[in-house]
């Protein structure tokens, strides 16, 4: 029976064509892989394979340029929006996006992010928020939830000592330069489909010169959180979503 079904005309899902065969270095079950696939799919759907320039960050996604066959640049830590600004201003016909984690975007790169968004640069900022520094061993990030345990706050984040978690998406939504700020997730098939639509809208906005679009992905870090991937997804739904609610924070239609 399988031999009858497995035919090219019956194909409903495959690895995006823009994604190459390099084995990804991400841990099993990492949300980065799904987000990479969505970016590859959206770029291919828009027919912008030759016109897209990505800027990869420092963090777990530092090797993003190894996996999606488009043009890439690698920015210094946190400086992806500044580099993307330069690329987009010099090549206004290119589709430019940054791909950043919370340590890159919300900690060391806060200034670059806020000013690029405030200038209304026509770029897409893809922000993967897993509330932890994944690559360096699970340290506390600005986005770490109150009471959440990490390797540098083993008794849980204490407000008196470590301050409050940073909702950078909400801050960016208040700026006049942003046209679209949305918070998505990729923990199940329905969420993945929704996130793909949001990504597509963000990329279209950047080509329509509407301003900066920000797509925040609330995601997991099963290694850093010390859980199995499915437990991490469940933990995210129970703990991350109440603090980082999903949905559009800003959507300027014009």
């Amino acid at each position, binding site marked *: *029976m*399988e031999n*009858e*079904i*497995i*035919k090219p005309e*019956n*194909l*409903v*899902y*495959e*690895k*995006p064509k823009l*994604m190459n*065969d390099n*084995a*990804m270095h*991400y*841990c*099993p*079950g*990492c*949300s*980065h*892989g*799904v987000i990479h*696939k969505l970016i590859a799919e959206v770029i291919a759907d828009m027919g912008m394979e030759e016109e897209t320039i990505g800027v990869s960050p420092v963090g777990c996604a530092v090797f993003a340029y190894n996996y999606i066959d488009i043009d890439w640049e690698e920015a210094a830590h946190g400086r992806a929006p500044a580099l993307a600004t330069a690329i987009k201003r010099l090549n206004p016909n290119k589709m430019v996006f940054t791909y950043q984690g919370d340590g890159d975007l919300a900690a060391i790169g806060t200034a670059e992010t806020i000013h690029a968004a405030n200038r209304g640069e026509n770029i897409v900022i893809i922000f993967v928020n897993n509330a932890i520094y994944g690559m360096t061993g699970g340290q506390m990030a600005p986005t770490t939830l109150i009471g959440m345990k990490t390797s540098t706050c083993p008794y849980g984040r204490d407000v008196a000592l470590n301050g409050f978690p940073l909702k950078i998406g909400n801050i960016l939504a208040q700026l006049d330069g942003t046209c679209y700020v949305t918070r998505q997730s*990729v*923990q*199940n*098939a329905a969420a*993945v*489909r929704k996130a793909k639509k949001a990504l597509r809208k963000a990329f279209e906005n950047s080509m329509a010169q509407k301003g900066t679009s920000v797509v925040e992905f609330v995601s997991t870090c*099963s290694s850093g959180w010390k859980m*199995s*991937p*499915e437990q991490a*997804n469940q933990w995210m739904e129970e703990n991350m979503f109440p603090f980082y609610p999903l949905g559009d924070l800003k959507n300027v239609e014009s």
Partner: protein
Amino acid sequence: MAKFRGAVVVNTERCKGCNLCVVACPSDVLELHPREVNNKGYHYVYMKSPDACIGCASCGLVCPDGCLTVYKMKIE
């Protein structure tokens, strides 16, 4: 009786055995292989009950490594 039949082809060398597709499957088709491992040492996923597959592609959508290719066919 399902109107659609599906099949999942697994790139076993790319699979990291994260189990997310197993959880995502509404028909309980997939399972991590209890004994076999790939060259990286991961228990890769395989079709435990291929007859139950409806080709919804939920597994493929949630797979972080793009290991799954899904086929779907309408049956009379």
